[in-house]
Structure formats: C-alpha cells, structure tokens
C-alpha cells in the first residue's frame, strides 16, 4: 500500500527525519492561508500516487499567497497524467503546501528489501533528484549501499560511511547519520516495502531536509499497521481492484484486454495470461483466487471479472492443489445461475477432486459452459469464444 507524499512526510517526521515546513490543503483558500503562515511564498505539490508530477503540471512555485491560491485552484481537481499513471491519470484532491528552500545540493536516499541476502538495504547517491534506475544503469559506481543485518540492526558506522560517500561531511555528518538511522527505523517499524527520499536537500543555510518522500508498506503486514492502513486513499486505486480487495481477493490486477481469467495460484495466473496471448488474445485481468475456498467467493470473483465492460469471454483455469476443483465448479454454476456473469465461460479443471468437479459441471445441464481439456485447449477456446466463434 502506497502513501501520499504528505502522509509519508508526516510518518518520517514522527521518526525524527527533518522535513520542510508546511501542511496539506484541500481548498485554494487553505493553500493561501498556509502560504501566509510560511511567510508569503510556497511550493504547491499535487498529491497523487505517481512520480514525475512536476513535468505534468502538478508542482508550482507561488511567490505570493494569491498565487498560491491560484495554483492550488488549478491543481486541485485535475487528473494528473504521467508516464506512470496510464492515459486516464489520477485524481488530485489534496495539495502539499511547503516552504520554499534555497537548495545547494541534492542527495538520493532509500531503504528497500534486497531479496538475495534477505536484508533491508540502504542506498545513497550524490546524484539526488535523478531517476535512480537511470543512475543504476549508467553509473552504478555512483550508488552506495549498506545492508541492515537484523541480528544487530542499523549501526551508526553505516550511516557515517554513506554520509562520507555522498559528501555529507563536516557539520553535516552528524545530522546525515541521524537522518539515515531514523529513515531505517521508520522503515523497520512501519513494515516498509520502499522508503525513498529523493532528494534529501542541503539548503544554503546548511540544513538537511527530506524535500520529497515516497513510502509504501508491505501488503502482507497491513494487519499490524492499522494506523497507516487507515490513511489509504481509495481514489488512487482501480475501482475493480478495490472491489476485489473488499471481497477478500487480494490478487486482482486490471489489464487492457478483453479476456477475463480466474485462476488459482499466481504462477498459473501469469502463465494463463501468457497462454492467452500466445493463442492470439489479450487478457483483461490477472486474478489469483488465493485461499478463497468457497463457492460464494468464486462467484463473487466471476461477477467482478464480468463487470468489466471490455470482457467478451472468460477462462476459468484451475489446477487444484489446496484449491478444490469441486468448490470451483460449484462457484461457477452459482455465478451462471444467478446471472452474475453473462459472457461465454470456458472451464478447465485439473487436480484435486477433479472427478467430482467435472461431475458437478456435467450435472448442471441448465448451465451453458465451454469445457476445456488442458491448458492449451482452454486458451484456444476462450480466444475463439471472445471472437464469437465456437
């Protein structure tokens, strides 16, 4: 789950990371008032779950409170379209109004999980403000890393090594080491997935500030991060994905094609998308039913898939392990009988209780289904069905 910049900064500030003065505003008048508090000038930043907001017109400098009001009026209510959002963009219902700072230097700093050693890794670079993927690709020697060993936790020497490496020495060494340690603490205690400050700025008056912040938490840890989960902004997420989430289906991703799929297991779900593509079709979604092991949940998932107006046909591709094919069969029949899904539906069942599963489908003679034997057959039949062929 992602946080907005203003939420991320509030979180980091709680852990002692210095952030610029400012607050979130939801109306132009609030933006004006905050700018007056800040001494008459400010920067107005659109709050949306995307990077590259500046290029898209989502970040503006205000020299007067009146200008702040005008900028906020222009940004609030806009759909912010960047290369990360897709053509529809994301709605902006809040702006962060912050003090203008005189920047001397920009540093990159982040904490994420490094899968191979299985430890959090702190990454720092003197090339702040840049796309870090580009820095990693073009000048990997400009990235400095320190792993956080869970046996002893973050140690100050790691902060010092990073600070020296990116040129934060002299009077900045102490504050930089502290900032890095506090960022790591925020990451560890909040079940962070990615915590990124890009950039940390050195101001002309010698302060260190987190000028931008991205923070997302591990979806698997939401159950123990209630205070963060309460800050979820549903307007930034896909409606059908939220609907899925509300029905206990964690693993639904909306895509652009016209063939819906309901699959058990993330790997088979990805492979089903690949198989549909090889058969000449385009998947409309990724959906792993996960641990949903009752007919009602399966039917709800089918209703969700069918509610996408782009979907012309649906493939149910099940290879039962923990998931039982008889339960899936009952769910499919339920969804069809209750009119929860109207599109042609191809069903492929293999694995646990497959004889029972197929028997349930056979006996439901009132329900029209296209049956498939094996993966390739299922992909071929659903592509044909999506084109109105038999």
């Amino acid at each position: 789950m992602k946080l907005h910049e203003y939420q991320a900064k509030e979180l980091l500030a709680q852990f002692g990371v210095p952030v610029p003065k400012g607050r979130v505003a939801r109306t132009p008048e609030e933006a004006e008032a905050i700018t007056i508090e800040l001494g008459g000038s400010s920067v107005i930043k659109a709050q949306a779950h995307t990077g590259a907001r500046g290029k898209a017109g989502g970040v503006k400098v205000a020299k007067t409170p009146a200008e702040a009001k005008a900028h906020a009026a222009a940004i609030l209510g806009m759909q912010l379209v960047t290369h990360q959002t897709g053509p529809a963009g994301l709605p902006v219902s809040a702006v962060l109004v912050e003090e203008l700072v005189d920047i001397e230097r920009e540093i990159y700093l982040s904490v994420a999980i490094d899968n191979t050693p299985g430890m959090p890794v702190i990454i720092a670079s003197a090339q702040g403000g840049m796309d870090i993927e580009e820095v990693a690709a073009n000048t990997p020697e400009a990235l400095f890393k320190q792993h956080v060993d869970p046996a002893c936790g973050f140690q100050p020497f790691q902060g010092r090594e990073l600070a020296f490496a990116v040129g934060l020495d002299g009077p900045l060494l102490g504050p930089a080491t502290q900032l890095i340690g506090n960022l790591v603490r925020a990451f560890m205690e909040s079940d962070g997935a990615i915590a990124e400050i890009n950039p940390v700025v050195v101001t002309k008056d010698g302060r260190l500030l987190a000028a931008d912040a991205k923070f997302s938490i591990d979806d698997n840890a939401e159950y123990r991060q209630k205070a963060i989960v309460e800050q979820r902004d549903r307007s930034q997420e896909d409606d059908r994905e939220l609907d899925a989430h509300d029905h206990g289906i964690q693993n639904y991703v909306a895509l652009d094609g016209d063939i819906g799929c309901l699959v058990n297991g993330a790997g088979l779900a990805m492979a089903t998308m690949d198989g549909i593509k090889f058969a000449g079709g385009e998947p409309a979604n990724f959906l792993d039913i996960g641990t949903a092991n009752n007919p009602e949940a399966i039917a709800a998932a089918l209703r969700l898939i069918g509610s996408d107006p782009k979907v012309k046909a649906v493939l149910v591709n099940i290879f039962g392990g923990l998931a039982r094919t008889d339960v899936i069969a009952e769910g499919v029949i339920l969804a069809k009988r209750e009119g929860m899904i109207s599109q042609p539906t191809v069903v492929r069942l293999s694995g646990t209780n497959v004889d029972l599963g197929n028997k349930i489908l056979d006996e439901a003679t009132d329900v029209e289904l296209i049956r498939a034997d094996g993966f390739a057959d299922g992909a071929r039949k659903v592509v044909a069905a999506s084109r109105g062929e038999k």
Partner: protein
Amino acid sequence: MSVLMNKDSRVVIQGFGGAGQREAKTSIAYGTQVVAGVTPGRGGQTIEDVPIYNTVVEAVEQHQANVSLIFVPAPFAADAILEAERAGVPLIICITEGIPVLDMVKVKRVMKNSTSRLIGPNCPGVISVADRSRAGIMPVDVYLEGNVGVISRSGTLVYEAVDQLSRLGIGQSGSLGVGGDPIIGTTQREALELFEADPDTAAIVLIGEIGGTAEQEAAEYIKTMKKPVVVFIGGATAPPGRRMGHAGAIISGAAGTASAKQAALRAAGATIVENPADIGSTMQAVLKQHGLA
C-alpha cells in the same frame, strides 16, 4: 529417491487445522510417514489417527520427525519456522502464503547459520515419486514415476508442468517448489544443485517468474551443469510495477523482466519455452535430443 524426501522421511505437520489435516490424509494414503501434528493447546489429542503435540520439540523426541510441514497462518508462521529450526528439524517446508517480508528477514538470518534447510514459504512442498514421499499440497494423481525433476517458484505451475509431462508418458523423479516470496529459504540455484546431484534425475524443468534476479543466479549455475534444463518464465505479458499475486513477482528494473531472464538462461545453455502450453513437448524433444528417451 529424487531430492530431500525419501522412504525415511518422517513428517510432522505444524498447524494441524483443516488444510493440515486434509493434506496429512492425502500424504498418508500416498504412502508417506506422517508421524505427528503440532497445535499448541491440543497436545494429547489424536486427529485423523495422527498424534498431536503442543510443541515441535516433543514431536521430534517422541517420533524422530525429520521433516516439518508448516500450515500455520501468516502472522505466526515465522515463529513456527524458528520453532522447527530450534528443535533441530533438518528439513522445514513452509506452505503458508502472505508472511510479512520483515519476518522473513529475521528467519533468513537464522537459517544462514543453521544446519536445517528451509523450503518456501508460499510453496507447494516437495515430493519424491518413486519413494511415494510427500510433504506438501500437490495433487498426487498427476505424477508418474520417471526421471525428470521439476523446480518452480509457483505451486500450480508445478502441477501444470507435471501434468503435461505425464500426459506425454514422461515420468518425474520429484518436484520441489521454492516459493513465490521475495525472501525464500532454498533458492532456484540451490534446487538445481540438488537435482544435478541426484542419480535418479536425468533432466530438469525450471519454472521461474518475473521479478527479482533469482533466475539470473540460477543461470550462472546452469552454465556448469551436465543435465539438460528446460525453462519457462511466467509473466512475459505482465505490466511493470504491478505485483502479480506473488509478493516477489513484480517487475522493477530491467533485470526483472521475462526477456532479461530468458536471455540469461538461454546464454547459459538452457532450453527456453515461450508458451506455457509447450513445457511437456519441449522436454520430450530435449530428452530425445540427449538420447534420454
């Protein structure tokens, strides 16, 4: 005997609830020794003819359990793994999905200095077909005895690959699901090492996924292998930046894409399957080519 599981494997199941009981029954019917269950507070009971203990240590003392199979819910699963490790169980297999990553950071650190091996989490388990020895959730009917080993990040794709092989009359020595999480106990590379050393395995199917760099690390080892490896990478059509169910399956950076992984594996000498429907037929061709079929 395939890898890790054999006739002497004695399985204790941690988290003897609905799923644990159902899988215990399937394993026992298949011929596997399921010697105990562990559910704290239920010690002394017998469920499905399996004696239940409060702690793993007791199950090990009473029944010489040497494999632990874990179904404990995600918030408590890391604790269950560490309990099995402390009890000295040499093989720990964790089925549980959805364990917080920072919990696995701690577990991984402990396993690094341990004599126990962890498989998973978020995996289908391990099966040795000739020995009818199963610790996992895989459907047993699709397996056919033979000499192909199957390794996968995904559970259901193990079944899919095994089914495609069996339908063509190609049997398996066994399968090992390494798990779909970002931090796992036994890596794809380590799983390849196990099958390469197994005298009953002649060829290997490896099923990877987008995200991370585990396939590239496996490719480094494939360069040195004698046995042929057929590889499918799931998620070629997945969009970047989106988590595809598995916490580990998210493309971030160029190394995580299916094409980058395929290129590394092809360069290492593996045979790449593009269409997931062709896993079985590709292995059939590879076996012929190597005079193994």
